[in-house]
């Protein structure tokens, strides 16, 4: 039995561990064995890809923290045998996108400018999961500084592959986190979502991914991409696990001024049959016409399998008593252009600190002055994506351009937010596809920044609006690749998203 333990959900495993059916150590070893059989080499610097790498997942980055994981699992077992409360996630092995700081471990954001950076502190979300008894296995790979939608831009190779089809990308930027959960290398993982970086890889790899409401989960210790859009959330095997993790990580944090005091409900308890049944009474689900018909957003031929799957999901919801109501989100097609501008202005500023003065890479070349040191350090340390984005960010926020570009982008963002607020006056939540395509082949669009950014066109509106959105598996396309159903709710209604997602998952299995 213990060999199959890697397949279980967190919800099941915690029951089994706490009732002493299995030990935390057994679960931990099962996950480690699984990693050994499917992971291959984890991401490192300057690694040429070999043929053998094409058959492995490479979800992780840097050496794994297996010794501390085993030690923690042992201490969880001791706590349970002593009768102490070991926490909600006691003994659950998890993985963390390498964009979160963990004290005394390497935190690189998949960039060689931070290749040797060891963080002096731990992010709030990781701290909360550790405090709840979670067992950290290691850091997962991502696009450099999260700039991408395929995990291919990481400075650490081999690139992560999609466990469903290793010739394809896992999505991104939280590709390693999605792949680890999908491949059974971690029971759950943490990701970050600025334009769809949790939901899109979740959809590509066939797992559940949640972007909570902006402010619902602390960003302390999350290396910023665009601070006004960044959200932290879980990637899990099922909806119940998602509720479990959200309950642990949500809630105000004195270290993040933008985190909110809104009370945190007990999300897992809201997934009882009775509670879910109650929610479906009179439930109105919005069907945003632009997401299905706007030619700038969706090509009906290219997305035929996906659209069919979403329609089937709508039929299922109707059968559960929900009403499907067409709504309009007229500014959706501006979401990507506005995002291009806003994210790049913020990230160009956020990347200033990587200057070789305090930590991280510093050039070895002889330099005459401070500015030459900056130039050489940043030229050597940053990959193509950060360089491209910094250039654009500096351009659009410079005097004379900011009014025309940045300020207009902010106005568009306000309009997109208004679209959602108006829609939520009529409906309780909105359903759509998570992505316009399923997982694309490795190298398929890598290098084309615009097309890569466009992969986020159905997910980024929720980031602009700050509202919560979840992606859950809803079938396979004709090539057998997972399709993601996206549910978007009003501010702080993660409870409703989880209930409606759970109803689909339960009926569909």
């Amino acid at each position, binding site marked *: 039995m213990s060999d199959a333990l890697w397949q279980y959900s967190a919800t099941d495993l915690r029951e089994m561990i706490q009732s002493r059916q299995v030990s935390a150590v057994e679960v931990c070893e099962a996950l480690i064995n699984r990693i050994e059989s499917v992971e291959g080499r984890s991401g490192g610097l300057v690694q040429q890809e070999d043929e053998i790498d094409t058959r492995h997942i490479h979800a992780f980055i840097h050496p794994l923290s297996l010794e501390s994981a085993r030690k923690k699992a042992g201490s969880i077992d001791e706590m349970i045998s002593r009768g102490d409360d070991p926490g909600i996630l006691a003994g659950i092995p998890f993985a963390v996108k390498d964009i979160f*700081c963990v004290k005394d471990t390497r935190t690189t954001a998949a960039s060689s400018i931070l290749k040797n*950076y060891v963080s002096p502190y731990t992010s709030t979300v990781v701290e909360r999961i550790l405090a709840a008894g979670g067992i950290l296995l290691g850091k997962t790979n991502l696009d450099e500084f999260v700039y991408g939608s395929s995990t291919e831009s990481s400075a650490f190779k081999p690139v992560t592959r999609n466990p469903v089809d290793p010739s394809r990308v896992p999505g991104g930027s939280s590709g390693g986190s999605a792949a680890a959960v999908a491949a059974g290398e971690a029971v759950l993982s943490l990701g970050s979502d600025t334009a769809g970086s949790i939901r899109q890889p979740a959809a590509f790899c066939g797992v559940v991914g949640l972007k909570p409401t902006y402010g619902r989960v602390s960003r302390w210790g999350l290396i910023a991409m665009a601070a006004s859009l960044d959200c932290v959330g879980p990637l899990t095997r099922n909806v119940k696990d998602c509720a479990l993790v959200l309950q642990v990580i949500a809630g105000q944090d004195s270290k993040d001024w933008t985190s909110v005091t809104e009370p945190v409900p007990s999300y897992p308890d809201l997934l009882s049959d009775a509670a879910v049944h109650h929610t479906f009474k009179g439930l109105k689900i919005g069907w945003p016409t632009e997401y299905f018909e706007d030619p700038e957003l969706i090509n009906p031929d290219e997305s035929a399998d996906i659209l069919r799957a979403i329609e089937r999901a709508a039929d299922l919801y109707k059968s559960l008593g929900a009403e499907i109501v067409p709504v309009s989100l007229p500014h959706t097609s501006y979401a990507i252009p506005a995002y291009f501008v806003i994210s790049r*202005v913020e990230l160009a500023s956020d990347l200033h600190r990587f200057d070789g003065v305090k930590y991280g890479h510093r050039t070895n070349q002889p330099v005459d002055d401070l*500015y030459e040191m900056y130039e050489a350090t940043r030229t050597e340390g940053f990959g193509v994506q950060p360089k491209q984005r910094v250039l654009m960010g500096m351009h659009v926020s410079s005097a004379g351009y900011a009014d025309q570009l940045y300020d207009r982008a902010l106005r568009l963002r306000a309009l997109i937010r208004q679209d959602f607020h108006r829609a939520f006056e009529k409906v309780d939540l909105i359903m759509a596809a998570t992505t316009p395509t399923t997982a694309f082949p490795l190298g398929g669009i890598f290098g084309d920044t615009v097309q890569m950014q466009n992969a986020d066109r159905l997910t980024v509106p929720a980031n602009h609006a700050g509202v919560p959105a979840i992606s859950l598996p809803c079938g396979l396309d004709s090539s057998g690749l997972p399709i993601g159903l996206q549910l978007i709710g009003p501010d702080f209604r993660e409870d409703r998203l989880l209930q409606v997602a759970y109803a689909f998952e339960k009926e569909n299995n």
Partner: protein
Amino acid sequence: MNYETVIGLEIHVQLKTQSKLFCGCSTRSAYERDVPPNRHICPICTGHPGVLPRPINRKAVELAVRLASAVRSSIHPESDFDRKNYFYADLPKGYQITQHGKPLAEGGFIDFILDGIDQRIDLNHMHLEEDPGKSKIEGGVWLVDMNRCGVPLVEIVTQPDLRSASEAAAFVTEFRRIVRYLGVSEGNMEMGNLRCDANVSIRPSSSDPLGVKTEIKNLNSIRFLEDAVNWEIKRQIRVLNAGGEINQITIAWDDQVKEGQLSREKESEADYRYFREPNLIPVAISEAFIADASIDLPELPARRLRRYIREHEISPSDAVTLIDERSVADYFESVLMIYSGATKRAADWVRNHVLRALNDPENAFNQINELPVTAEYLAELLDLMDAGVISDALGPQIFQKIIETGRSPKQIIEQEGLRPPEEDDLIQIIDQVLADDPVTVRRYREGNDKVLNRLIGQVMKQTRGRADAQKVRSLLIERADAL
């Protein structure tokens, strides 16, 4: 050609808080000289990856609001934070958190007196920001000290209303007094608690449009400010008279050689790419908060100065000495409330004895509230002298005794037996002196008035200084003439 000078000032003031603006690190290095570099730092103020500014230091907002309120600046009910982006070794995040679009307060004015004339300079605005660190090159190596990173600053920007270096100096002198009166800053310019940038331009007299301005950076003493501005005015006049034109540059003042160093680049080329700091929510400032922050706002020093000169008829230079430190002026006024004699006498005693005692390195105290001679004791001492209970000559001696023992003037007079002798006793002493020195008495009686002083001295010696010298003199004359 005659030129008119136009000066606007930007003054940075470190707010007197225990901790930094956006983290819990100590601000000690702003006040103590022996703090080792990079001692009071954390991941937040050194810009580590993933950190966020903590909710703003409330005390800093309170102090800034107190200052705004005192200078009649109108405080925005909500103000925002922006990032000012630039690269420098002592700016760990690569941007400074400041207020650009919607500052804490706008408008307001500062009054001061220059050469007896009332002046009013309008303020443009006032905003909160974080201090950068310090850096220097030593032996070809860049050294960075981040202790100062994140120390709360308020920056005030004046309108370009100042017309001379001495006006600018008088303004900063007054501003420094104000922040110290309010308790919002130590205002120690040498420590960098208060730093000044001056924007200087000149234009032909009677011409309206402003000339091109240059900015003199980081002037950390009022004398440097005055010297630097005068130097720059002369330089600009020279350039214009030679047919050249002024470039918008920055100038670093070198006090060693009394010369400015001109930057190569034009300041207008700097683009800070300001945008809203997404990690901070706007600061809301309620009427109640303003009321709390403005509690016990003192009378401002310039007003006090005017009052001393006009109501108390204290000379302007004496009045400046009295108002310079709020605690001294408060002390002086406490003395006045109790003391029934002349204001001038109290003022002289505060200037001559109290301030001297404070400045005396022999004394263990340097704050007026630690001085054993409280305002009550000084008033008591002055009243005792006025009433003739003790002689004026004994005043300084008793003052010193109070410092040494902490006892009241009356206690000291009793215990030391310093009351003047009764008239009968005094006459007895005088008669004895006259009897003991017939030679001097004879010379006096022959018309040599000068020798009288020797006799007075002998009487004073006999009475151990307790007797009133005037009284001794008249009694001596009376007794000697009667011989």
